[in-house]
């Protein structure tokens, strides 16, 4: 399996400048020639430049500028009011508002965009409480990738919507679609996705003559060598590898990657068998325990996404496991890491059946059973998940599409060239957490997993075999309750 690694380089930068109209035509040609670009590539870059020329910068554009109307969206929904719980406040909201406005304009419907809670726990509580009351406070709502099982009883079947979209060439990634199917009912449709990725400091690999690691053993070796070298050079705060080790959902994601990539399964398999106590699972967790205090800081046991990212961002970290959002921040103009790193698949283990693993994240659309306008709500959900909106979401918000075709779209590649390199991760490595099989008890299972793994990492427990056996029986108990 070839590892695609994207090195942010001058060409990408040039394309982005062209896309966003940051550089003049003459400037582009000058920089392009200096880089020795082919005529064809230059041509396409200049085309983006003319796109950009219509309005100055992405900041200067109205949100939703790239939205287009799918041909199938020829319905009259005048007089219908739909309430949709979507993004929280913040960067996402203006774009979503624009999509809602666009939909309203095209169909005549009135869309009431409700901003969801930032904290996932709060949001889930809100959903379950509202839906338990069978209240029609909202018709459509955005759900985390691990919630379909929890909320399935309140969801409208969207199987026909998925096939309608497939007919017009909008095919979702099969793994994500499966994750959104509970008891053969398509309870939700994928909106955008996320997956765990390995960020690597390519400049340091070069400095220490290491190659990009493809197995955990190689990563350990490279991380140790780089860390030793950098600490020796006087940077005492340098660490080899950072990940999310605090007792929270993020650790469940990390642990799943270690275990799955070592051929140890997904703690609970799709048929309900508990595999948390398999030898490969134990070996994988034991390996991770060895990182704490050696190639990883001992505080990694209280690290969430941002804690590790700050270390990475400070230039004190060789390898970093995180979600795609880190890319844009690290590659920003004022970042110390600009053009010094790559992103790709996490390493795999050496156990039997070892394979790359990237825990699936992301959000999906669900339609409430208690909606007064189920058909209109389905049309809205269909539009939200369509190729057209996914494309705009990728261009304007850099969120990762769930439809393979979007990754091949030239406009998307021009706006976010690196998304092409995320594709193999989503397509080839993504692993879903055992949320379908555990249904509404997923959080019980996840709490059990991250609690035990965190205790092992932090040394509150040291017998990995006994701890994982304990976890397995706990998970079995939960499965009996499902």
């Amino acid at each position, binding site marked *: 399996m070839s590892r695609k690694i994207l090195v942010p380089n001058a060409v990408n930068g040039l394309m982005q400048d062209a896309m966003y109209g940051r550089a003049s035509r003459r400037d582009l040609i000058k920089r392009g020639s200096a880089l020795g670009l082919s005529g064809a590539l230059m041509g396409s870059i200049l085309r983006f430049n003319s796109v950009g020329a219509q309005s100055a910068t992405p900041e200067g554009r109205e949100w939703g500028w790239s939205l287009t109307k799918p041909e199938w969206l020829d319905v009259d929904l005048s007089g219908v009011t739909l309430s949709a719980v979507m993004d929280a406040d913040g960067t996402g909201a203006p774009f979503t508002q624009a999509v809602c406005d666009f939909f309203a304009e095209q169909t005549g419907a009135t869309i009431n965009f409700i901003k969801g809670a930032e904290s996932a726990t709060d949001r889930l509580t809100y959903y379950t409480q509202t839906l338990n009351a069978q209240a029609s406070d909202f018709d459509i709502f955005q759900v985390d990738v691990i919630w379909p099982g929890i909320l399935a009883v309140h969801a409208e079947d969207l199987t026909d919507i998925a096939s309608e979209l497939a007919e017009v060439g909008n095919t979702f990634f099969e793994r994500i679609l499966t994750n959104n199917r509970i008891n053969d009912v398509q309870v939700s449709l994928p909106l955008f996705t996320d997956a765990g990725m390995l960020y690597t400091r390519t400049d340091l690999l070069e400095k220490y003559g290491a190659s990009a690691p493809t197995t955990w053993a190689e990563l350990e070796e490279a991380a140790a060598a780089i860390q030793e070298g950098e600490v020796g050079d006087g940077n005492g*705060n340098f660490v080899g590898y950072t990940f999310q080790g605090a007792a*929270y959902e993020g650790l469940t994601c990390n642990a799943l990657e270690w275990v799955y990539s070592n051929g140890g399964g997904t703690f609970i398999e799709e048929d309900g068998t508990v595999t948390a106590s398999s030898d490969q699972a134990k070996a994988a967790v034991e390996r991770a325990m060895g990182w704490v205090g050696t190639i990883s800081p001992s505080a990694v046991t209280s690290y969430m996404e941002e804690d590790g990212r700050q270390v990475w961002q400070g230039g004190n970290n060789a390898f970093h496991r995180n979600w795609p959002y880190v890319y844009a921040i690290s590659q920003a103009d004022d970042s110390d890491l600009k053009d010094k790193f790559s992103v790709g698949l996490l390493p795999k283990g050496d156990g039997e059946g070892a394979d790359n693993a990237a825990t699936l994240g992301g959000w999906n659309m669900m339609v409430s059973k208690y909606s007064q306008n189920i058909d209109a709500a389905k049309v809205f959900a269909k539009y939200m998940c369509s190729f057209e909106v996914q494309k705009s979401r990728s261009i304007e918000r850099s969120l990762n599409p769930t439809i393979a075709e979007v990754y091949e779209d030239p406009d998307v590649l021009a706006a976010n060239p690196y998304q092409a390199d995320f594709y193999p991760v989503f397509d080839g490595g993504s692993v879903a957490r055992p949320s379908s099989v555990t249904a509404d008890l997923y959080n019980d299972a996840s709490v059990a997993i991250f609690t035990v793994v965190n205790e092992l990492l*932090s*040394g509150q427990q040291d017998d990995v075999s006994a701890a994982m056996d304990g976890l397995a029986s706990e998970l079995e108990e939960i499965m009996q309750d499902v």
Partner: protein
Amino acid sequence: MASGDGMMDRMAPPRVTRFTAPPTRAGRDQERLGWMLILPTILVVIGIAIYPLLESFRLSFTNYRSSRPDRWSYIGIENYKDILGDSTFHTSLWNTIVFTASSVALETVLGMIVALTIHSNFKGRGAVRTSMLVPWAIPTVVSSLLWSWMFHDNFGIINNLLVDLGFTRFHMFNWVGDPSTALFSVVMVDVWKTTPFMALLLLAGLQVIPEDVYESSRVDGATKWQQFWQITMPLLKPALLVALIFRTMASFRVFDMIFVMNGYNTSTMSVSVFAHQELMAKQRLGFGSAVSVIIFVCIALMVVGYTRMIKVEEQ
């Protein structure tokens, strides 16, 4: 009720105000007025505390889960039995006891030192007293974030200063994540935040001790140390006792500080954080309510103990 009156007397400043209302029309009017005036408060207390509490109590005997609104039943004391056997609950209870005992003890000792220091007269005394209000006034969420930031292994000022002072073992030390120091870290933050409160309480107690008591003991040749144990402590005891109980009850239900600093990490999980995990993260309303009820009972017992102690003091 009569015995209750005793407590009110103790808690209140000397009461000089009893209007004796005979069972006349005026008395009935007063009765009606009294009820009218307390009605809004009583409504709030009943609606927002008593009723939900009874509801929690009821839920604690069910296996209710938010995700299964139609599939639940009364299961007797099953939840309570499960809690007694739940190892995470044991951990959280132990954490809470350690947290409460150590932070209350530290706050008291430090508070006493600070109170005695400020009690003496010196230039800038007012400013020091004011500065002590700063930690107390900072919202708990903010102080938790602030200390998390100072405890950060990589960029944190605490590790940095310790290493600069020559304690190299604190290089990138993991205060909040290391199980051996995690609880200590949250205790530190609690002590920082509440010592001023304690100190000011004790200071108020110190200030009502008449100076001539010290004067006469000085004449008798008592040392400062003897004065402290023979005069200050006995006279301060009522104030100290009240402060101790109040702080114990507050520490026992600690939630936001630990939740913000360390989430659901078992190394620092308190019983309230455990209840929150069950109620909110897992949405196990039945089981979680049972945990809440246990917390409530513990605190109610402390209140009873408190009133008892006050009464003993009186006799």
